[in-house]
């Protein structure tokens, strides 16, 4: 009979589940996030209680065969939030521990290949956020941006933005997952806000943002159109590089307002 382990959706929760599998010597298991878990009559299920100590032990234990890169891949693939990724990762962890070697590059194993592909997608989304975040300067002197990435990548972006914008306060907020990363000139913190829907509403822009903010956005837009070479126009490629779902965050792609 299959045992279903249901955890809270956090990375620590997932690692605790792995701990439990080894501690209780479970075989034939399936790990699911609470919000996605469905009850079936054919399996037993156990609720995993997230335990940071156990999670840390697993995480340390993995260093031996997975190396830093392998561990990074586990974390990144996990952030994809893809259905069933937990079980793919379990397969990877299990093989690493039982074969006692680094198998990260065994691409002929379909599950390993899947992890590699997922990591690539997550990396790509992370890079898109590095690129497509557009800060607007609020009246409180905060550089503010909203995003809603396909995967939960903001934890991966923190370092890049911290290194780059070391002398300005900034906040990048994930509207989809309702949390953000905030830099206060010293450290980056996770933050939950009660964000008003109006914040992205152009008619309310002058309420939140500095007067100059709008002018800079217009200059940027002017630059964007002037640097284009019309005789080389290729919209297909344009959209391939910036899929339409990202346009809403890019000031250069918002239509000109008719007054």
């Amino acid at each position, binding site marked *: 009979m299959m045992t279903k382990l249901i955890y809270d959706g956090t990375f620590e929760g997932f690692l605790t589940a792995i701990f439990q599998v080894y501690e209780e010597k479970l075989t034939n298991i399936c790990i699911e996030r609470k919000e996605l878990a469905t009850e079936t009559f054919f399996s037993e299920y156990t609720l995993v209680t997230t335990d940071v100590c156990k999670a840390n032990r697993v995480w340390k234990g993995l260093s031996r065969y997975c190396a830093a890169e392998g561990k990074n891949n586990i974390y990144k693939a996990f952030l994809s939030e893809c259905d069933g990724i937990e079980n793919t990762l379990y397969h990877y962890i299990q093989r690493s521990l039982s074969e006692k070697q680094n198998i990260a*590059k065994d691409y002929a194993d379909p599950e390993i290949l899947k992890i590699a592909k997922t990591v690539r997608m997550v990396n790509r989304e992370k890079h898109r956020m590095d690129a497509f975040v557009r800060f607007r300067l609020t009246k409180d002197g905060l550089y503010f941006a909203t995003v809603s990435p396909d995967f939960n990548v903001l934890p991966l972006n923190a370092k890049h933005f911290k290194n780059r914008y070391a002398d300005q306060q900034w906040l990048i907020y994930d509207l989809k997952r309702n949390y953000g990363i905030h830099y206060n000139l010293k450290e980056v913190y996770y933050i939950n806000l009660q964000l008003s829907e109006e914040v992205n509403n152009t008619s309310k822009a002058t309420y939140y943002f500095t007067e100059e903010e709008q002018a800079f956005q217009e200059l940027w837009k002017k630059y964007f159109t*002037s640097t284009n070479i019309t005789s080389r126009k290729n919209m297909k*490629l344009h959209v391939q590089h910036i899929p339409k779902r990202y346009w809403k965050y890019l000031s250069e792609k918002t239509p000109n307002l008719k007054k």
Partner: protein
Amino acid sequence: MNFERIKEKLSILADAAKYDVSCSSSGSKRTNKNKGLGDSSGMGICHSYTEDGRCVSLLKILLTNHCIFDCAYCVTRKSNDIKRAAFKVQEVVDLTIAFYRRNYIEGLFLSSGIFKDADTTMERLVQVAKKLREEENFNGYIHLKSIPGASDELMREAGLYADRLSVNIEIPSETGLKLLAPDKKREDFIKPMQKVKNEIIQYKSEKKLIKSTPIYAPAGQSTQMIIGASGETDAEIMYTSAYFYKQFNMKRVYYSGYIPISYDTRLPSIGTEVPMLRENRLYQTDWLLRFYGFDIRELLNKEYPNLDSDIDPKLSWALRNLQLFPVDVNKADKNMLARIPGVGMKSVHKIIQARRFRKLNWEHLKAIGIAMNRSKYFMVCDSNKFERKDRTAAQIKSLILQHSASKYNTTYNQQLNLFSSIETPVAV
């Protein structure tokens, strides 16, 4: 800031700068210092893409489009009847900082028409970079154009503030240059290049001894050639390019399909198509030289002075050298794997990694992501199903072309992908 005035200048001076295709912002090692602004130690980022599908990573503008020269292929030429404008040094500084802080750009690419003389112009460009570094503590990317004929002293200073320096030779041959830019001399381009190269070498060796030696143009230098404005063959263009890579340690040579902007009879007339496919083939060749271990003489020579337009240069080469194929993917060395048509460098690395665990068969290769259309005629793997027939080059070529969904479309798209990508090698 007078936004209306700036906006007008920006539209004129960005428009005039857009024909320089370099958009690279990678390769620098400049990290954030003293909690200042910016960092350019990573891979460059494309923050946006224009509707022509090109990467926008730098604020690319001219300081001014006033110019005393009259190069036929250039919109900024003296005799052209266009609106002229000039930025003040501080305006460029402020604009760069405001854009950078909003995460619009990786930095600044500043070029200029030559007003008054080479040194005055170069000096003004250096001033902008110096202000950004010293007054604004800016660690973002700065690419400065070296003005042909600028003094050694100014070039030395420029490299202390800039990440990259470039002089565009524009016209690949000396005869073409004489015809289209009679005021310019080849030595005027070569001199600043030579200076920059020497300084880079010198600063590097000093840095080994004295840690506090400042970095000099850490992202090196690049140049650009216009394609299709003067009648050079592909071989002439690529041999020139190979020479520049070798002689001046160029980081990049860019190829820019000539965009007709003039009724001058020395040039292709307005309305002539931009030679984008040719441009793409040249980039592919450039990639083969830099990342795939090819020698220019293998790809272009007296017998083959021009690249094929219907197939990529690696495939052309393979078809001329069928005696070297098929390659066994489970045994061949990296060099030979890289020569299989349709297999890019990324795939080469994956094959090498994956074959350590088991012998690879067709399924494995497909799963790894290798496109079979071209490659299958040139390799064997752990399977007895492979192309056994001894086909001639012409037969293989026609089979491959038949099976490309739409051959023009695929090459065309690939070309544009390549064109807009930054420093990542693309499978050719």
